């Protein structure tokens, strides 16, 4: 008897101890990290409380009516069917509530729509399925890819806190600076959303939208693409790192330095194995989404590279596809996205891997050829 009680008590204790419903922390919008995001949060809460009050009033009135006027013996229902005064009253009441909401909404809207130039202007381009960031004044830029491993996505490795919200290279911005984002897209419509900045702007091919932010404290802010952009729409997160202006200038200096180094690399003499090694990495990062791990693609939308005529025997066309993309298909141009070395390496890799070298001509491509392609085009 005692044992049973003791057992059930300890079970209950264990259950309560283990019961942690993490989601209670994530019920509401985040107030965010900027003045604008906090104002939008305040507006959201105002509207929310007004709606909550209306909702509770209506539901309580309804509950009262349902209980009070349920059918009872000998009670006859009333037969009124109109009251102009009453109807005018509540119509006016609704209108007043809406005006009360419209006033703060308009003022916040005007603040959000300030599209003066920033101290720093960053061009953001959405690609299937990655973001490209270019610092307009400093003429440096890079691509930002999801860095969560396939093993985690396929439940083969444990997931951690930033699952699907982590990238190989975050966007770095300085604190206490007005940063303006110019947002566009290269293929389909994407949408760049960082909740902590309260910026959500669609990235539309052929259009340049703007958003701006002014972050006071350093921090890391995460967001996601919010417009359906194809099969990996859920896998193109945004990570923004706000750092002190000093740290930011170091970051830009390093970027410029790396750009010069990169240019020098095209002059170097490359071996097939060196190119293969780089190429495999590039392939895993940029190509597997469509052409798949074994290179077999998902025909007919994403063609197989294994045994492909172009990959085996037509080097010129192979380079052209990488540089120009394929009109009317999902294949984009990688001329901007990858360096000469990287393009040469990934072409070499696909021409060598999966038995393509044995069945095809097995020709490799060196960075100089890509540079020449670019030069000839000019």
């Amino acid at each position, binding site marked *: 008897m005692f044992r049973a009680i003791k057992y059930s008590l300890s079970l209950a204790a264990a259950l309560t101890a283990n019961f942690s419903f993490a989601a209670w922390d*994530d*019920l509401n919008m985040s107030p965010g990290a900027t003045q604008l995001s906090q104002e*939008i949060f305040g507006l959201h809460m105002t509207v929310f409380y007004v709606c909550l009050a209306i909702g509770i009033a209506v539901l309580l009135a309804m509950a009262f009516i349902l209980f009070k*006027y349920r059918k009872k013996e000998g009670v006859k*229902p009333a037969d009124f069917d109109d009251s102009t005064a009453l109807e005018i009253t509540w119509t006016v009441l609704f209108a007043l509530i809406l005006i009360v909401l419209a006033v703060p909404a308009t003022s916040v809207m005007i603040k959000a*729509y300030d599209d003066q130039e920033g101290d720093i202007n960053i061009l953001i381009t959405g690609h299937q399925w990655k973001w490209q960031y270019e610092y307009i004044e400093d003429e440096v830029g890079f691509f930002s890819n999801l860095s969560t491993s396939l093993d985690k996505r396929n439940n083969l490795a444990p997931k951690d806190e930033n699952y699907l919200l982590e990238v190989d290279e975050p966007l770095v911005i300085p604190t206490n600076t007005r940063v303006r984002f110019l947002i566009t897209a290269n293929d389909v*419509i994407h949408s760049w959303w960082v909740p902590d900045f309260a910026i959500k702007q*669609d990235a539309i091919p052929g259009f340049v939208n703007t958003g701006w932010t002014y972050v006071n404290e350093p921090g890391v802010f995460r967001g996601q693409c919010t417009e359906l952009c194809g099969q990996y729409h*859920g896998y193109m997160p945004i990570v923004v790192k706000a750092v002190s202006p000093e740290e930011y200038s170091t970051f830009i200096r390093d970027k410029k330095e790396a750009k010069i180094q990169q240019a020098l690399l095209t002059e170097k003499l490359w071996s097939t194995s060196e190119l293969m090694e780089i190429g495999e990495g590039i392939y895993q990062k940029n190509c597997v989404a469509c052409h798949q791990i074994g290179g077999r693609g998902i025909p007919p939308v994403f063609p197989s590279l294994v045994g492909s005529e172009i990959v085996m025997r037509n080097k010129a066309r192979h380079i052209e596809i990488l540089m120009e993309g394929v009109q009317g298909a999902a294949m984009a141009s990688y001329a901007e996205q990858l360096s000469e070395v990287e393009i040469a390496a990934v072409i070499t890799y696909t021409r060598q891997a999966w038995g393509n070298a044995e069945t095809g001509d097995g020709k490799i491509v060196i960075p100089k050829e890509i540079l020449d392609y670019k030069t000839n085009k000019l």
Partner: protein
Amino acid sequence: MSAVIDSHHDDHHHGPAKGFSRWLYTTNHKDIGSMYLWFSLVMLFIGGAMAMVIRAELFEPGSQIVSPEFYNQMVTNHGLIMVFGVIMPAFVGFANWMIPMQIGAPDMALPRLNNLSFWILPVAFGILLSTFFMEGGAPNFGWTFYAPLSTEYAPPTVTFFIFSVHIMGASSIMGSINIITTILNMRAPGMTLMKMPLFVWSWFITAYLLIAVMPVLAGAVTMMLMDIHAGTSFFKAGGGGDPVLFQHIFWFFGHPEVYIMILPAFGIVSHIIETFSRKPIFGYSSMVYAIASIALLSFVVWAHHMFTVGMPIAGELFFMYSTMLIAIPTGVKVFNWLSTMFKGSLTFETPMLFAIAFVALFTIGGLSGIMLAIAPADFQYHDTYFVVAHFHYVLVPGALFSLLAAAYYWIPKWTGKMYDETLGKVHFWMSFISVNLTFFPMHFVGLAGMPRRIPDYAMQFADWNMMVSVGAFLFGISQLLFLFIVLKCIYNGKAATTEVWEGAKDKGFEWTVDSPAPYHTFSSPPSMESLKSSS
């Protein structure tokens, strides 16, 4: 008792033909209404199965049962089927059954058109569903099919999708022409426009909305077709086209479309509430004006779906204000329903339970709609699960509950038999609990930042998503119970009276004819006096 005498006796009340040809060639509004309703019930289970796949995939973080590509096909076709294959045909089914009976007409004005408008629907959905078995897979660009994802980057089956949408549109336009013609020409003597039952009014206005916007949708998909196959650049930025133009055109169709899916529900719920309150509807004329103003406003609010496309601020403010205005007529309707119940004599049979849940939960959907109307706040809500929660609240416990309510309300009149009231109540409570379990937590994950249409999500959304999935599975199972209840009613129900519901007395012509209603309802028009005098 011989068949010869029977057929002679029923000279102009002859029964239906037998076998499949009865359904294929029928011009009878009741047969066609039933076919619409069965069709939408079948589509409900197909579209529902897709929702189950979606929720199974989202049960836990990480890849679960389908690939991201197939997930997108599920999301797209779930939306298309629920909108065009379930809610809209079901309302047309009710229109077919009830409008002639409510206005005292023998049938619809254009019976052959009626037959055609139904029979092209299975063709349209056959085409759409067949794309699942084609190379490249089914449409995968969302039910809103934004260009250029749906043009330059679409699977080759998009052409079948376009053709299918064209046929659906043709069906809706034919149905609407029929409904308007019937209402304008075939009302019983003395039934002036402002004496029409509210369901008839709501469909009268809805039919005009359909005629106005379906051609716009047809235009949008035709431009897509041209972009894909004829080398034009309507939506192709590279050729000087404009991807945002697509969204303007789509939502100019799309926003009236969402009211097409809710206005007939307003009519249905008004009838049910007045019947089970044993009182006349409160504010009849303001109900009519409210529906009309919602319909008119629906043409000037479309860009509130596009607050993040980068419109000029004047556009943002205009669409914010016009959208907020919709709250006024909608609020009037909710208050009118409450006032109808006020001082009534309420009973809570299954149709009334669903109607009450409609008012309560539609109010929640309406209030989250006001929040979404606030443009700067919408920067945070847009394309998150908050939006998913909002439109499911107005479409599931909104439109779908009104359809279930209507089915319980009128099925005794159609079959002459009562459904099982206990099972009906079980169905209601299961649906009510699970629908909230499914859609309420979506508000939370949306505000916390979960984008919509993603096949996998960050860890912080895990707990609520599991709850949503459990709710969705329960809701799915509950609807199988509905199918059972309907079949049990048809094959094994107790006989229903002419009036069916105690409170239905004098509430409309449909309650003056036998249960089941004769194959041809009114061979001579009933008189409005017959409704009044008996009270």
